[in-house]
């Protein structure tokens, strides 16, 4: 069972949440300009990573807000929770290293 820390409500049982799948898939700026293959890729193709994975969750039975989670799909360990629109943890780590 997962214990997920909602950025707004704190740590709650997995049953309060729904998983929204792979994170950071940008909606195409101009869908009409896409080929069928590009549209299929956006709509259906997923990384389905075995290991560290970035995904979206929503606190369905709580504040009903969306957020991102970094979770290992083999161990189920959650390594980061970050808000929608924020950069994924590794990108942020790189950025802060650069600053230093």
């Amino acid at each position: 069972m997962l214990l997920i820390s909602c950025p707004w409500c704190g740590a709650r049982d997995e049953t309060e949440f729904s998983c929204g799948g792979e994170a950071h898939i940008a909606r195409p700026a101009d869908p009409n300009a896409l080929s069928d293959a590009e549209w299929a890729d956006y709509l259906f193709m997923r990384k389905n990573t075995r290991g560290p994975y970035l995904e979206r969750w929503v606190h369905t039975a709580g504040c009903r807000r969306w957020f991102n989670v970094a979770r290992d799909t083999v161990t189920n360990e959650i390594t980061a929770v970050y808000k929608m629109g924020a950069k994924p943890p590794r990108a942020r780590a790189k950025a802060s290293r650069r600053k230093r």
Partner: protein
Amino acid sequence: MKGMTRYSIFSLVRNAIGYHEGWPRAWRSPEPRETYDVIVIGGGGHGLATAYYLAKEHGITNVAVLEKSWLGGGNTGRNTTIVRSNYLWDESAALYEKSLQLFEGMTPDINFNIMLSQRGVINLAHNLHDLRELTRRVGAIRLNGIDSEVLNTQQVKAMVPILNCQPDARYPVLGASLQRRAGVARHDAIAWGLARAADARGVDIIQNCEVTGILRDGGRVTGVETTRGTIRAPKVGIVVAGHTSVLAAMAGIRLPIQSHPLQAMVSEPVKPVIDTVVMSGAVHVYVSQSDRGELLLGAGIDGFNSYAPRGSLPVIEQQMAACLELFPIFSRLRVMRTWGGIVDVCPDASPIIGKTPVEGLYINGGWGTGGFKATPGSGWVFAHTMAQDRPHPLNEPFALERFTTGALIDEHGAAAVAH
């Protein structure tokens, strides 16, 4: 079938005299050769069936099945063994019916008792919408020449006396669909029997051999990298169930598949109380009774991607609560074991069987929660696809391209419960 002991009443008697110490092993355990004509990745039921039919139907025997663990230790050995062919759409009906027919002839074909028990599968309707939808489904299925019928409450009660059919039940039973030719089969026997039959025709079955890379030259596959060295072949088939995306990524192919844990459990053994299979899609429960007397109960998938073959407890709690509403008689029984397997789910709940953008590389996956029933049919069409380098008409609609053309085969409803 050189060197293979034929199993029969006579071989049983002969070996009984020797206290059953003289049985030869059922298949060889060869060292991998450097090259093969065909490599099948994955020693589950589908991979073994592919190898068997390559040898039997197409005369291609220079074949290796590479299995990272032990034979049938994946979903083949973890599933709840329901077989049926009552699918809604024509494409699925044809494929699953082919498979059921192969199952019906399999025991003599491979000289191994697969313990096919056509005890019927019942799908319950708990509300008017369920009943209308199920009636429409039965009609569509019959139009495809597949046996299927609608039962009313009294008929269901007569077949399953322990089912709570009271009108004031939490989940009242308004009716059901029934496929009488459906039922269960012995999962291990199918893996072992197919392995033995494929081996007898010359196929090398290599266990403890994990594929770690897919070798390519230009746009062509040339072999695989494994934990037991490089093995070359001009044709490679990926048949790895829950790990389909992982293997496809090794060849740079993106798939529309998501991997989830799917769980099942057994109770302590009891005397026979149910002689058919009962499924309820609406409350996500299905029940059958094994030959040992255990009640075999299935649940749904975890809602998130995972490669941890355990699954979450809330899924089991939810299915158990619903199960006890349907079968109050089970309330004092103890659960003996729960387990999970990783299933590869497609957006339309139908499999992907066919060619890939890499020449000589083929994929057979995305069977999700319901591929056991398809084991022989899947191997049969995939062997054809690999041997001829083009799909059989039965699996043509199941190509990867359907996600680009939009010709999806939406079987979410037909999958009834989890399969």
